[in-house]
């Protein structure tokens, strides 16, 4: 299968601070990919690197087999809807469509008109007078009518109310069935991504914590609860993601491809949200340890 995005040791630094570092991922085509992580984790940086709006400081990135923003052909293949789905407040809805048609070689004018009509957006209205949900739908229409092979959306629903959020995701997901293209969208809320995404990347502290197909991630992560135990005494194929202990009990979140035979454990499935939180928790735990070592 072809890759939609491949990054190797990718990094981007602003001054002294690494916004993204040592990012190595390979995303197969045909997925709706969720990029999740707390604010400031490096999500926007990764998306801007993928769309060619930023140059890497370290490592390399290939998108749909080419260098991001490497030429007109590459630009035509990738759609980008920036954070909070911006549009031009002073331009009318129909101005936006004209602009889209002029700027995009593969522009699908019929699709754009049909979508705008279905959404009931008045063509003569200035975008600044539209509601937040309507502005987001207009931005999505521009991204879809470009007919990209990959559509990147940075926190598209963060500022929308629950109804507009649902409608936005409905339209986006419907479009993925109608026209085959890959999607990468970011959110700091797992709940936005849980139903829509079948591939997940967790970013925290400027690093990729885990990446993979959602089904596979859910099948290989388990929560073990049982009598207190040192994590070093777990089988070698059980990678500890997070560990919590009381004086008597230990709770581990582990990742393993094999079965769990130890009868001492109560094994439970994780929800996607718990899985994501466990990986973020791991990060902060390591940081705390590092901070303690420095102080010593």
């Amino acid at each position, binding site marked *: 299968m072809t890759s939609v995005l491949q990054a190797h040791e990718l990094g981007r630094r602003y001054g002294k601070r690494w916004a993204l570092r040592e990012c190595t991922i390979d995303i197969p085509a045909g997925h*709706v990919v969720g990029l999740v992580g707390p604010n400031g984790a490096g999500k926007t940086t990764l998306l801007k690197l993928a769309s060619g709006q930023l140059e890497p400081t370290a490592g390399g990135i290939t998108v749909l087999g080419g260098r991001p923003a490497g030429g007109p052909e590459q630009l035509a293949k990738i759609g980008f809807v920036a954070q909070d789905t911006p549009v031009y407040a002073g331009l009318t809805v129909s101005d936006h469509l004209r602009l889209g048609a002029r700027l995009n070689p593969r522009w699908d004018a019929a699709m754009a008109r049909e979508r705008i009509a279905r959404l009931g957006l008045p063509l003569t209205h200035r975008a600044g007078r539209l509601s937040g949900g309507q502005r987001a739908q207009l931005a999505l229409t521009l991204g879809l009518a470009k007919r990209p092979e990959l559509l990147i959306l940075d926190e598209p629903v963060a500022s929308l109310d629950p109804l507009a959020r*649902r409608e936005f*995701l*409905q*339209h*986006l*997901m*419907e479009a*993925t*069935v*109608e026209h085959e293209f890959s999607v990468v969208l970011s959110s700091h809320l797992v*709940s936005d991504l*849980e*139903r*829509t*995404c*079948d591939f997940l990347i967790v970013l925290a502290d400027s690093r990729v914590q885990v990446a993979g197909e959602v089904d596979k991630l*859910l099948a290989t992560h388990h929560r073990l609860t049982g009598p207190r135990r040192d994590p070093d005494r777990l089988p070698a194929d059980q990678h500890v993601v997070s560990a919590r202990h009381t004086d008597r009990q230990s709770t581990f979140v582990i990742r393993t491809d094999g*079965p769990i035979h130890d009868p001492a454990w109560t094994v439970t499935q994780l*929800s996607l949200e718990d899985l994501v939180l466990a990986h973020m928790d791991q990060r902060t735990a390591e940081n705390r340890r590092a901070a303690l070592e420095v102080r010593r």
Partner: protein
Amino acid sequence: MIEFHLDARSGVSPYLQLVQQVRHALRLGMLREGDQLPTVKEVVAHLAINANTVLKAYRELEHEGLVAARPGVGTFVTSTLAGASLAAHGPLRLELRRWLAKARRTGLDDDDIEALFMTTFRSTAQEDIA
């Protein structure tokens, strides 16, 4: 035609919820042989979910011999679950009632009963999978 819904807090994966809702509709006679299931696009647009989730659910139903896909047309019900199992409901309900009465006599309240049922149900379900 049936309409799907998803319960985010049920802990059951979305694909399995779709499968269960079709089975449920078949058991209750809401879906009959020859009926069409909503298209993948319709389900995706309605629930805002990933298309692969719907495809996976429909594949599983196909594998169970309950539905069949006609390329370019849609997915249709080919079998029914009502009838044979419906006849078994009566005796099972009677047994369950007796069991519930027994549980209450020993001092279990509603929450105790639900907790006991769910843990037993889940652990046997897991044993079946393993």
